[in-house]
């Protein structure tokens, strides 16, 4: 006990020392004034005293394995995921709520909701790349930008409609995925991360600077929403339609991801994530498989981009900064790499909560950062871990025994 207190005290003092110049002193070099915020020191001290306690407690729990595999949370989520009696009604309730959404919610709430839904689609798309295939892509937002700009520009110049742009955006996403993938996918994990980050930034900087193509930092305005059977809709009707479009897209995404996960291709992605060399020794073409993951992931980003452009009616390079990639990545990481339900929950928490809880908005990025670190440390599989499918054998058993 005494030893514990001493450790916590040492941690508290260390962090007071660490944060002293930044938290306490604030200089204003223009007016040449210094502000001393001594009270912060107390806050830091007390906070870290307890945090350090918590830290050691969690580390100890981690050693015991209760946080990751044997813990209550895992048992609980596994049960929800595996028992039809539990997850079927949940899906039903979810579907009804999703369908009735626009009738209950006002326009003001619809916008953030649609954003969150777009991010679920993005999350699920990136999840294919990161969660299933294990390729850390930090430039995912580039494909999202490709979709959004494709619709905005083609509409601006040629009056292309939303419905035509949707498959086109998807296709362009895939094409870009392959084009970027071919040179970079040979690289090892962390190099891949930084090169995709580089590519993402290059695309954003091009959008920002190539005024003739992209209209520069000011972006493109007056992007129309979707039409319904050729009729132009009012703003609020258009929002509702977009809502249903994105819901449909989400259902389609979930369906696809679910199928791919337990297919020949999905298994080769998982295998690639687990051990590249063994994977090759099993006759799997590494490049082809990675490219497939990249392209499929990018397809979804492209589609989501089109919907985003239609929803906002206005796009500029600011919507496609590195931080958006990070946000999508956090959704995947926190939700649980490879888990669909986890991604959905995480997208709601990360995208919707900050809209409504103002204080969270301000500290949002800070909390993301901390959450990503803590998640990796204590629960690397995310809130909801991905459960591999079990197969049942009855008929085969006898057959095998005979033969």
């Amino acid at each position, binding site marked *: 006990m005494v030893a514990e207190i001493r450790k916590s005290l040492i941690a508290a003092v*260390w962090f007071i*020392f*660490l*944060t002293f*110049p*930044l*938290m306490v*002193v*604030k*200089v204003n*070099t*223009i007016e*040449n*004034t*210094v502000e001393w915020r001594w009270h*912060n020191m107390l806050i830091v001290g007390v906070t870290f005293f307890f945090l350090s306690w918590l830290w050691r407690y969690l*580390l100890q729990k*981690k050693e015991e394995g209760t946080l990751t595999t044997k813990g209550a949370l895992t048992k609980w989520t596994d049960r929800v995921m595996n028992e039809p009696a539990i997850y079927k009604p949940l899906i039903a309730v979810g579907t009804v709520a999703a369908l009735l959404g626009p009738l209950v919610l006002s326009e003001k709430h619809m916008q953030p909701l649609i954003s969150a839904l777009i991010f679920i689609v993005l999350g699920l798309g990136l999840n294919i790349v*990161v969660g299933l295939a294990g390729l*850390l892509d*930090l430039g995912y937002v580039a494909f999202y930008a490709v979709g959004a700009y494709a619709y905005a520009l083609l509409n601006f110049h040629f009056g292309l409609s939303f419905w035509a742009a949707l498959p086109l955006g998807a296709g362009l996403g895939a094409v870009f995925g392959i084009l970027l993938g071919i*040179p*970079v996918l040979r*690289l*090892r*994990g*962390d*190099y891949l*991360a*930084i*090169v995709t*980050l*580089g*590519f993402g*930034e*290059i695309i954003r*900087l*091009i959008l*920002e*600077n190539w005024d003739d193509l992209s209209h520069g930092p000011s972006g493109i305005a007056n992007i129309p929403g979707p039409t319904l059977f050729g009729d132009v809709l009012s703003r609020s009707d258009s929002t509702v339609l977009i809502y249903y479009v994105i819901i449909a897209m989400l259902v389609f995404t979930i369906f696809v991801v679910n199928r791919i996960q337990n297919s020949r291709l999905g298994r080769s992605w998982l295998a690639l994530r687990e051990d590249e*060399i063994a994977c090759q020794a099993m006759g799997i073409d590494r490049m082809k498989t990675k490219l497939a993951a990249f392209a499929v992931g990018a397809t979804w980003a492209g589609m989501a981009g089109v919907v985003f452009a239609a929803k906002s009616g206005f796009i500029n390079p600011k919507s496609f900064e*590195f931080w958006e990639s*990070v946000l999508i*990545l*956090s959704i995947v*990481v926190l939700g649980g790499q490879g888990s669909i339900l986890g991604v959905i929950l995480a997208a709601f928490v990360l995208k919707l909560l900050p809209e409504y809880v103002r204080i969270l908005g*301000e*500290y949002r*990025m*800070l909390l*993301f*950062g*901390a*959450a*990503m*670190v803590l*998640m*990796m*440390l204590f629960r*690397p599989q995310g809130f909801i871990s991905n459960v591999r499918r079990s197969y049942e054998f009855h008929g085969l058993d006898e057959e095998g025994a005979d033969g």
Partner: protein
Amino acid sequence: MVYGIIELINFAHGEVYMIGAFVALIVASVLTMAGFTGPAVLALAMVFAIIYSGAYGFTVEKIAYKPLRHAPRLSPLISAIGMSIFLQNYVLLVQTPDFLPFPNLIPELEFLDPISHIFSSNDLAILSITTLSMVALVLFVKYTRMGKAMRATSQDRTMSTLVGIPINKVISTTFVIGSTLAAIGAVLIASFMQQINFYIGFVAGIKAFTAAVLGGIGSIPGAVLGSLILGLTESFATGYIRSDYEDVFAFALLVIILIFRPAGLLGKTKTQKV
């Protein structure tokens, strides 16, 4: 350098650099307002920046990397990105989201006056301090016990553990040294650019990494050569083509190098053991 040993891109490295710059700014401003001037301010600012960057580097390693040493490769990478985001926003929240003007701490040297338009005291300071740090680093890595342990660790971690090298200590030290160098760089560059904000670490981190990759990861002369090439390409490219694209060049160069010569200019390709 740090990368060579832990075999992991330290995404938080740029943030440590940024914190070094902020600490230097704070110390320098407080001292200036208290009426001090001259090289003493620079020296003190530098010392504090080094201490704090080192301390942050140490802490970051302890929290975000050490517990993940045996985890799958993706985990420390993601936790490093998380750490980087956290530190950036921490500085943004407790300090300011705006650019802060950074005082030029490097005193004008009179004897350089006649040639100051081609070779200013800034250049002299940057050149001499960089050379000094590089020489010190090379000496340290080549001749001290710790330096040897570092090289061994970067060769083969399992083996090094077996022969009794305290891996944890080696990796911590590497982080601290890397952070110290980041702080020196931060103070010099901030003095030169004369402004800083919470975001400088991100770009600096990318550029530093580009330079390191360019020269060949883990090779000190390589890193210096890499930085020189990067700096030159950048200024030529922006001078002759378009200045808006300055940062694009760093990224593009990085992408090109990684794709065509991932071992760097001076590095050797390693075959992975199976």
